[in-house]
């Protein structure tokens, strides 16, 4: 399809979005991610029945934690796509990257010695 989406993205593949735990998401932020997208299958279409629904709840919990520790819950988002929705994936990545650029670099990265460009991490199933 030769779709274009921002190159600031690092994709981490997992067997199912239900594999993504709260600690994985928090560690991504600890390691300097400016934003994290969790991309699971469409709701109702999980190959493992409810993995994407577990992921959604965990993303919600991480949002709360990020709010409370001062990073802001907008830096993480849950997205649902099928494997045939490449166009929509690119659109979501552009949307999330735009949001993260608006928010600016993560304070974790700026207060540490880091200097990497803004990055969005994606956990994709």
């Amino acid at each position, binding site marked *: 399809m030769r779709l274009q989406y921002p190159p600031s993205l690092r994709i981490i593949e997992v067997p199912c979005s239900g594999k993504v*735990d*709260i*600690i994985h998401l*928090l*560690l991504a*932020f*600890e390691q300097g991610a400016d934003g994290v997208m969790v991309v699971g299958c469409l709701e109702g279409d999980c190959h493992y029945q409810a993995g994407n629904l577990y992921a959604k709840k965990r993303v919600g919990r991480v949002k*709360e*934690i*990020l709010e*409370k*520790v*001062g*990073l802001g819950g907008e830096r993480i988002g849950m997205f649902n796509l099928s494997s045939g929705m490449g166009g929509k994936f690119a659109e979501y990545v552009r949307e999330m990257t735009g949001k993260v650029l608006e928010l600016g670099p993560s*304070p*974790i990265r700026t*207060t*540490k010695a880091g200097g990497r460009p803004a990055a969005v991490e994606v956990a994709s199933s």
Partner: protein
Amino acid sequence: MIKAIGKPLEEIIGNVQDLSKVLVAGCDGCVTVCEAGGLKEAKVLASALRLYYTQAGRPAQVDELSLTRQCDKEYLAQLSDRIDDYDAVISLACGAGCQFLTEMYNHKVVYPGVDTCFIGVNEERGYFTERCQACGRCLLAETGGICPIARCSKRMLNGPCGGSEKGKCEVNPDIPCGWELIYERLKTLGQLDRFEKPVAPKDWTSSRDGGPRKIVREDLRI
């Protein structure tokens, strides 16, 4: 098992925000089962605190571990060589474990990381309900295996109160009336005649009315 729930993060941050070295100590016992204070929860809390300190511009050392049980000195002793490296410990054990940690390391500030709630069961993952109030003298043999102390909001001993309506408690319609449950259970067992024998007033000295309790088993002591 004992059921607990994690304290609000802002409350924990409020306790430790001025510190620079914090240890989050989980417990592999009851609080692991109810997913409030095991190793996994200790890792999440420690990570959240590291994020807090770093974004506030003053990175702190936050480490985590989980002890087999915090209600046993043998396991608490595993902290002896490293506890002095920290300004404070956040204990994710129940109130008993947290206090035992405090008693063992008298010089160290210990903050609770969970609210200990009750002795209960796992209805399903993330859904826990109370079954026992540890009153010290079990009545289950007389009440069809359903406890009127833990299941009746008023701890009635001889049948339901006037607030029982359609099998629900007047305190909250989500609470089943404990005595309705006992009646139905005794009916199933064919033991409704038990209702004809009034239960004598309960001796509460074995409960909290007798002050802090202890069990001394000479047959077990070394």
